[in-house]
C-alpha cells in the first residue's frame, strides 16, 4: 500500500457557531493532481488554508508525510508545502524580488543569498518564460504573468506539494490552459481549487466536491462529474458527454434559469 503524502483526519473548522468545514477526511498520494470543486462558499479556500497551515482547525488533524503540521514549525511546513494564491496585485516589488522570496523558509537568520540561490531564482523565472520581465514591477504585469511569477516563487520554494487557490481566476482561456499545463509539467503533487469544471475534468486525476463544508463526492473525474451530481450540487441543468480529445467528461450547461435551491444559499452572514 502506498503511504499518502497528505492526510486530513476528521477535520472541522468553526467560526462562532457556524461550521465552515465539517469532518473532512481526505488523502492525497504522491504525484496526484487533485482538484477541489464546489460552489462559492462551499469551503474550498478554507480547506486549502487548513492544509497550508494558515487556518488552525477546531478539530481533527492534517498530516503531511505522517507528521501533524501543527506539531512542526511554520518554516518546516513551508519547506514541504508551497502555495500559489490568487495573485495580489498590490506588490511594487520586481518579479525577481518576488520569486526570490521563495527562499525564505530555507534560510537561517542572517543568511545571505549565495550564487547558487540566485541561479535557482533565475532558472525558475526562465522555466515560466518571464526572463525578459525579471526586472519589471510585479503590479504592472498582466494577470497571467503574475500567476507565472508566483509559480516561479513556488518552484524556488522547492516543495513536494503545491497548493493553488483558483489559479485560473480572471485569466483568458489561453492563460487558463497555459498555467495548468505549466503546473502539470512540474511533476509535483498538486491540490488545486477550480471553478471551471471542464478545466478540472481535463487536468485533474482526482476530484473532491465540497458542499457546505462537507465532501459530498470524490473520485476520478468520470465518477464525480456526472449529470446528477453536478446538477444537484450547483443547481444547474447539465448534459455530460465524453471529451473527444482527453476522454474525460465534457460538461455542457443548458443556461436556463432554475429556482434557487432551498438551503443552498450559504452567504447569509
Amino acid at each position, binding site marked *: 500500500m502506498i503511504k499518502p503524502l497528505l492526510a486530513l483526519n476528521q477535520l472541522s473548522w468553526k467560526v462562532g457557531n457556524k461550521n465552515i468545514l465539517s469532518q473532512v477526511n481526505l488523502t492525497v498520494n504522491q504525484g496526484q493532481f487533485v482538484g477541489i470543486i464546489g460552489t462559492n462558499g462551499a469551503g474550498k479556500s478554507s480547506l486549502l488554508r487548513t492544509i497550508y497551515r494558515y487556518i488552525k482547525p477546531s478539530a481533527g488533524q492534517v498530516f503531511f508525510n505522517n507528521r501533524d503540521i501543527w506539531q512542526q514549525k511554520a518554516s518546516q511546513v513551508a519547506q514541504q508545502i508551497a502555495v500559489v*494564491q490568487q495573485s495580489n496585485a498590490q*506588490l511594487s516589488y*520586481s518579479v525577481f524580488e518576488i520569486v526570490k*522570496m*521563495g527562499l525564505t523558509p530555507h534560510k537561517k*537568520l542572517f543568511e545571505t543569498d549565495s550564487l547558487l540561490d540566485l541561479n535557482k531564482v533565475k532558472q525558475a523565472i526562465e522555466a515560466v518564460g518571464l526572463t525578459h520581465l525579471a526586472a519589471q*514591477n510585479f503590479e504592472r504585469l498582466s494577470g497571467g504573468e503574475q500567476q507565472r511569477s508566483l509559480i516561479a516563487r513556488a518552484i524556488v520554494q522547492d516543495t513536494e506539494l503545491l497548493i493553488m487557490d483558483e489559479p485560473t481566476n480572471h485569466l483568458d482561456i489561453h492563460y487558463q490552459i497555459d498555467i495548468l499545463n505549466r503546473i502539470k509539467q512540474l511533476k509535483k503533487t498538486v491540490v488545486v481549487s477550480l471553478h471551471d469544471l471542464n478545466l478540472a475534468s481535463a487536468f485533474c486525476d482526482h476530484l473532491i466536491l465540497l458542499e457546505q463544508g462537507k465532501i459530498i463526492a470524490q473520485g476520478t473525474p468520470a465518477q464525480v462529474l456526472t449529470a446528477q451530481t453536478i446538477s444537484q450540487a450547483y443547481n444547474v441543468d447539465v448534459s455530460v458527454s465524453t471529451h473527444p480529445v482527453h476522454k474525460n467528461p465534457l460538461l455542457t450547461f443548458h443556461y436556463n434559469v432554475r429556482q434557487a435551491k432551498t438551503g443552498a444559499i450559504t452567504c447569509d452572514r
Partner: protein
Amino acid sequence: MRSLTLAAVLLSAFAISVLIGASFGAVSFELTQVTGALFDAMLMRPASDPILSQIVIELRLPRILLAFIAGAGLALAGAILQLVTRNPLADPYLFGISAGASFGAVTLMTVLSGISLIFLPIAAFIGSALSALVVLGIAGKSSYNQIERMLLAGVATSFLFSAATSALLYHSDPQAAAAILFWTLGSFAQAQWSTLALPMIVISLSLLTFFAFSRQVTAISAGDESASTLGVNVARIRLFMLILSSLISAVIVATCGGISFVGLLIPHLIRLVMGYSSTNNYLLVATVGGLFMIYIDLIARTLLTNQEIPLGIITSIIGSVFFLYILQQRSTRQ
C-alpha cells in the same frame, strides 16, 4: 560588488558630513583645522590648538554623532513599521510613542516638580513605554486584523496622552510650559559623549536584529497570508518589530525630545529616488536618515545667530513641504 560600492559611498558621505558639521557653528573653522584636531584626538597627541580641539571634540562631535544616531534610528524604525504594517503613513510617532514621552516629561516637570530635571529622560522613557504597552496589548498576538488594531490603538493612545499632557500644562506656570514646549520640539544641545552610549547600543542592536529578520519582514511587506505560506510567523514578527521600533523611538525621544517626521520622510525619500525595494536595505535607510539629521542640526544651530531653532520645527517644515511636493508630482504623473 554593488553593495560594496554603496557601502563605500555611504561611508565617505558620513565622513564628509561629520567634517562639515564640525566646521560650522557659532565659530567656524577651516576643514583642515578640524581634520587636524580629529587626528590629534584619535592618535592621542596633545592638541595643537586646545580651544578649537575642545569645541570640536567635546561639543560638536558628540552632538553630530547623536544627530546621526537619532536620524538613523528614526528612519529605520519608520521603514520597518511601514514594511510590516504595509501602511505608507506608519511612523514611530503614529503609535503614540512621542505623546507618551511628552506626558512622562510633563508629569515630571509639573506634578513631580521637586525632582531634578536630570531624570527627565527617564520620565520620558517611562511615558513612551507606557503608551507602547497599551498599543502592544491591543495589537495582540493574532494576525487577524492586527494592523488595523495596531494603527487605531496608536492613534487613540496618542490622543489620550496628548490630552493628559494638555491638561497638566494648562494648570502649570507659563515658564514650565515654555520649557516643556522647547523640549517637545527636540534638540541635540544636551549631547555629551556620555549621553551617546545608550541610544548607540539600542540602535546598533536593533539594526542587527532587523538584518537577521530582513527576509521575514520583506515577506510580510508582500502580504500576511503570502508570508505565512513562506513559513513566517506573521503576528509574532510584527509584534517584535513594533517593540523594537518603540524602544528605538523611546530612547531617542528621551535623549533628544520629539523630532517628528523623519521616520516618515526618509523611507519615502529613498523609495522615490532609488526604487521601491530600497527601503529593505537597512544600512542605506539608517545612513541617509543619519546624514539628513546632521544637516538638519547644522541648520538648527547656524541659521539664526546666537540662537538655536528647535529641530522639530525644521524637520516638520522641510518634511511637509517635501511631502506635498511628492504628492503633487504623483498626481500630475497619473
